[in-house]
């Protein structure tokens, strides 16, 4: 009874919190609320017997994404333009920027569509909500039970944990493409050629000397946790994503605290590190075609070994990618290779 009550409150809290995230005037506060939202989602997943994704959501969905948001909101406040762009900019734009930057409430946001648009929108959106609500309440008993099929085939999958089996064997093609998405995101972000944000980061690292100590303490712990998650993934909740997420979060923390400066050199080390997970996955997936005749169809004898190898490299790439997405600035050619070694330290 108590647990039912707890579930009801949690379920009710989520949409309300989402509403608050979108309506809080102060953007920093909105992002903090967003992180809280992510943690509550993770909690509800834990309640729904989904520890794997609860872990991933806490680390990636709430933690890393929240940090990304904070970083950007900070960037929107303190960012100064580089002089090179100033020249070919119209006066009008400059004035507009001036007006926004000098507005006292920044990063407060209150621009919304006019009231009548909002009013007109409520009707179709409410209708959609009612339809969806009715749909989920009236879900029939599905004719197909994939859970059963997955557990029946678990033995042949080479691992003992259901989610890992799905991710890296039954539906490994999805996972392969998803790693591609990560790589793609890095390239896309780099292609924007952003400068590094100093404002938000600096505020965090300077304002909190305690952070340094904390990070120093956390670093070995997180590496151990990450390693454990990777190793455990074959049998119980955990795996490459969770391990990568933890290590990625560690990378972000190190960058934030200023202990590690983000890799600036365009040595191929970083690029290889980013790409290696995808490349190894794709390579093994293609190579096994020769043995078994199908893409990603591992030979039964070596399934476990291959999955572990893939997971190992995936962990490295996922961690690096998440950290790189956070740093956003592409590495530059003109920088020395000094920082390069620091980047490697992060990799371990």
């Amino acid at each position, binding site marked *: 009874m108590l647990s039912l009550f707890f579930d009801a409150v949690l379920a009710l809290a989520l949409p309300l919190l989402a509403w608050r995230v979108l309506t809080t005037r102060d953007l920093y506060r909105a992002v903090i609320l967003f992180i809280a939202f992510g943690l509550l989602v993770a909690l509800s997943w834990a309640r729904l017997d989904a520890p794997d994704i609860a872990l991933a959501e806490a680390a990636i969905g709430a933690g890393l994404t929240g940090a990304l948001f904070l970083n950007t909101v900070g960037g929107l406040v303190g960012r100064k333009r580089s002089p090179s762009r100033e020249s070919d900019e119209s006066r009008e734009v400059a004035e507009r920027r001036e007006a926004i930057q000098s507005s006292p409430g920044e990063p407060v946001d209150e621009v919304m569509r006019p009231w009548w648009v909002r009013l007109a929108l409520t009707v179709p959106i409410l209708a*959609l909500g009612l339809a969806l609500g009715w749909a989920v309440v009236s*879900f*029939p008993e599905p004719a197909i039970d994939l859970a059963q099929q997955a557990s029946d085939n678990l033995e042949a999958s080479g691992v003992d944990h259901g989610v890992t089996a799905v991710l890296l064997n039954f539906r490994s093609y999805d996972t392969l*493409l998803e790693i591609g998405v990560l790589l793609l995101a890095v*390239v*896309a972000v780099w292609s924007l050629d952003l400068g590094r944000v100093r404002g938000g980061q600096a505020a965090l690292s300077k304002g909190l000397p305690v952070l340094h100590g904390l990070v120093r303490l956390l670093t070995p712990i997180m590496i151990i946790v990450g390693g454990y998650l990777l190793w455990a993934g074959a049998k119980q909740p955990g795996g490459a994503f969770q391990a990568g997420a933890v290590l990625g979060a560690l990378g972000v923390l190190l960058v934030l605290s200023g202990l590690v400066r983000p890799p600036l050199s365009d040595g191929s080390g970083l690029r290889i590190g980013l790409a290696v997970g995808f490349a190894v996955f794709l390579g093994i997936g293609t190579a096994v075609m020769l043995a078994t005749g199908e893409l990603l169809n591992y030979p039964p004898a070596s399934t476990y070994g291959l999955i572990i190898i893939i997971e190992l490299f995936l962990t490295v790439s996922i961690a690096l990618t998440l950290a790189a997405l956070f740093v956003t600035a592409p590495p530059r050619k003109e920088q020395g290779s000094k920082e390069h070694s620091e980047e490697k330290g992060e990799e371990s």
Partner: protein
Amino acid sequence: MGLIGSNWLVVPIVLPLATATLAMLVGRRSAPYLGLLTASGILLSVAAIGLTVLEEGTIRYQLGGWEAPLGINLYADGLAVFMLLMTAIVGAAVSAYAVGYFTSRQDESGRVAGDSGDRSGSFWVLWMFLWASLNGLFLSADAFNLYVTLEIMGLSAAGLVTLERRQSALSSGMRYLFVTLLGSLAYLMGVALLYGALGALDLATLGELMYPGAATWSALALITLGMALKTGLFPLHFWMPAAYSNAISPASALLAGLVGKASFYLLLRLWFDVFDGGLGPGPGQVLGLLGAAAIVWGAVMAVRQRRLKRLLAYSSVSQIGYLFVLFSLATTASWGFDAWSGGVYHAFSHACAKAAMFMSAGAIVRSVGHDDLDRMQGVGQQMPLAVAGFALGGVTLMGLPPTGGFTAKWLLVSASLESGQWWIAVVLLAGGVLAALYVLRFLNPALIQVKVGPVARPATQNLEVTAFVLAFGSFFLALLSAPLLALLRIGTPFASVLLVGTP
């Protein structure tokens, strides 16, 4: 089927992924060569897949060796191969174009030197991911896997738009990103509902289990909305003119030619393979009506534009209408296959023509330095090939023989008259005349002669040639109607209609 035979199917997906990874590592100098090599590899593999499907029928490929519904399957029927072929042709042409585009860009001035991020390198990586996702989308037989390909497609396409760093390009890229993410999320919600109601992700399995109910209706609505948004169906096209016209021209060609077609394909696939023709006649009628409105609205807006690339973008709004008209025509009646294949044929010919036109426009803009339609005088003298490419592409938009647009129009008009919805035929036919008006909106000023001495302008020779070759090749697409329609018959959802035969 031998080891090689069915494994051709993964080549168009795996090859560009591998190239993307390599291109990221090697940087901009060798990326173009890798890209061209990949393009030829894809052309080859698509040809092989096409021949296999023509000879042996549809192919189902079990990834990882796992049967559906637990595993993910690839599935190649006539429609999928048709779309692969379209993508391979347009993709190869754009690849060749991009080589010239980025080379001459760097010759142009020192502006590029100021840009430390090498755009050429990013272009190739993004484009290879895009190509892989397109091929993956056409071949996928799994609802969730389709979501992943959709996301790769959306992110790489948005990345291509924001390669241009002007403010207008960035804001239209931002808007495009929102639109494409929202579209994918609506789709994913639909898939989640389907999974909740039917317990499977494999399209064929979903089709077998389909029943009309609250969850499936909601899923249909969400998926249709999401895909209509991504495709830019009137009135959800608000993002399109800006995104198409502000991107760099190779990206415009890819977006207008291929990306919009992919989301349309996905809707088509689900509509007929999973939702059994839209769960009833009503939804199709709505889409058809919107399509007809798009034809007129887009064309009228295109005539009123002052800039070349915006004109082309609005022309796409109009041409997309032709695709959606099929939803109100393609039923199990005798004209169903005509309508369905007419719409798909239109997708093919429009992809080739519009890509060629954007490529021509890119060469022209590069050369004259602006895309103001009122200042195009003399362009025809200076760049006859580019203008000719544009004009040939324009003929496809008008739907005249011997272009593929004619075949499509014939089939669609025929289906609409046969089904008694003659007003659709009126709109389809009027759209052709309107298309002539907006094509002339450019040709009229461009062909006017001016007396000018030789002017120094950036070299656009290879850009013009690529655009012209694609336009010229696609000009004769109606002549390939018989084999292409035969291809489309393989595995079509309208097989029952075809067995009955036409009167």
